[in-house]
């Protein structure tokens, strides 16, 4: 059955929040796996970087670095949509913040605390992601073992990447856990406890991979 009155946007907003979050999380994890190619050595990372620039389509094998800029713009747009719809859920007024603090001081509840972490890391991402997207999107040709290592360690961008890594890996895993139970994937077989455990493992694994990758760039700096 479809509704005649589609003016009520809240349903669309809620679905866009979940959908944009899922796409961003899948992108994030794929992205981190690709970046972690540095752990396999210089050649592996160069191959991945060139392939992402669609080098196999150009005759000289140099590829098209602007493809990476396009991806950065796409991620930026998607993240903007996610922020705009998710912001409706945040306690923006002082009155709401006071109500939340008051309730949390009386009631001890794990998933509410988890959500507070998701909100805090979300604000962290909002501040740090634009820096990352600008650095990559404005100089896509520099991505590679030497160029990235120079950016991360010589130019000090690790100070952005490290907190960003921690924020996104917490935010994404908690978000996917919440989306799964929000839309009802919880069944006897894949119970909430199990999904929650997987969430924690995913966060830890990707934070470890991320930190290892950042360190792996050190020798090329």
């Amino acid at each position, binding site marked *: *059955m*479809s*509704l*005649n*009155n*589609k003016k*009520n946007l*809240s*349903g*669309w*907003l*809620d*679905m866009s929040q979940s959908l944009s979050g899922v796409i961003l999380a899948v992108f994030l994890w794929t992205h981190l796996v690709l970046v972690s190619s540095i752990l396999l050595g210089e050649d592996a990372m160069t191959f991945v970087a060139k392939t992402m620039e669609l080098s196999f389509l150009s005759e000289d094998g140099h590829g098209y670095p602007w493809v990476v800029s396009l991806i950065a713009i796409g991620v930026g747009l998607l993240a903007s949509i996610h922020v705009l719809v998710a912001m*409706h*859920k945040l*306690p923006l007024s002082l009155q*709401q913040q006071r*109500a*939340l603090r*008051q*309730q*949390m001081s*009386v*009631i*001890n*509840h*794990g*998933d*509410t605390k988890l*959500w507070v972490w998701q909100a805090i890391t979300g604000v962290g991402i909002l501040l740090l992601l634009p820096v990352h997207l600008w650095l990559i999107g404005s100089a896509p040709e520099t991505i590679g073992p030497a160029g990235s290592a120079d950016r991360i360690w010589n130019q000090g961008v690790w100070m952005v990447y490290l907190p960003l890594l921690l924020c996104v890996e917490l935010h994404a895993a908690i978000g996917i856990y*919440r989306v799964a*139970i*929000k*839309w*009802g994937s*919880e069944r006897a077989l894949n119970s*909430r406890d199990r999904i929650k455990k997987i969430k924690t493992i995913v966060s830890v694994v990707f934070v470890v991979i991320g930190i290892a990758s950042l360190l792996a760039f050190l020798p090329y700096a």
Partner: protein
Amino acid sequence: MSQGRTLTFNIFRYDPQEPGDKPKMVKYQIEEAPGMTVFIALNMLREKQDPSLQFDFVCRAGICGSCAMVINGFPTLACRTLTSKYPKAEITLMPLPGFELIGDLSVNTGKFMRELAERLKLWLHPKADEVDIHRIEAPMAPEEAAKLYELERCVECGVCVSACATKQMRDTFVGAVGMMKIARFELDSRDTRSVEDFYHVIGNQDGVFGCMTLLGCQDNCPKDLPHMQQIAYLRRKMATALV
């Protein structure tokens, strides 16, 4: 066995009716008895130590939902909470947040529930021509009756409302109790309201699309109602109505 312990109760005291009274925590001590519940302890405290202590109860058996309060950080029913559950013998009692305070541990859940029922129209809406008191009521399939009964178990204690941070931040949010009751009428074949009708009531930021799935309702409901599954079901139903 916890028999013979001395229990220490830290109880929130404040009477808004008394001019000049300020909210405070007051300490009481009481000898633990076998099988003692927080509700029994409160009655003993009121009887023997402080007759001015305010708290609600009716059934003392987890059926009326009156004695809900926050016990050591968890909102639940005092009559179903054994004092032996607390190895440190220290119990802190607070009134349910998010409701009008009557005094001490007593809150006005009734006013909230009545307003909610009126706002969401939480009663059966049968077909106009089916209302005939001279006719025998049509039988209902046992499976359907069982499903409805499961949701009818709600005792309106208010625990889900106070455990929900979303509700605390958004006063107009209907909370798990509102959605549970809507789900109950949505499942009822005698109710004539369509998906569209329900959408107008809970297909918005005050209903399923405002719920952030923090699951305070699911984790604290003293009747173990399936809030998580039920809200997810309603959300899918409302989302399908959109597309």
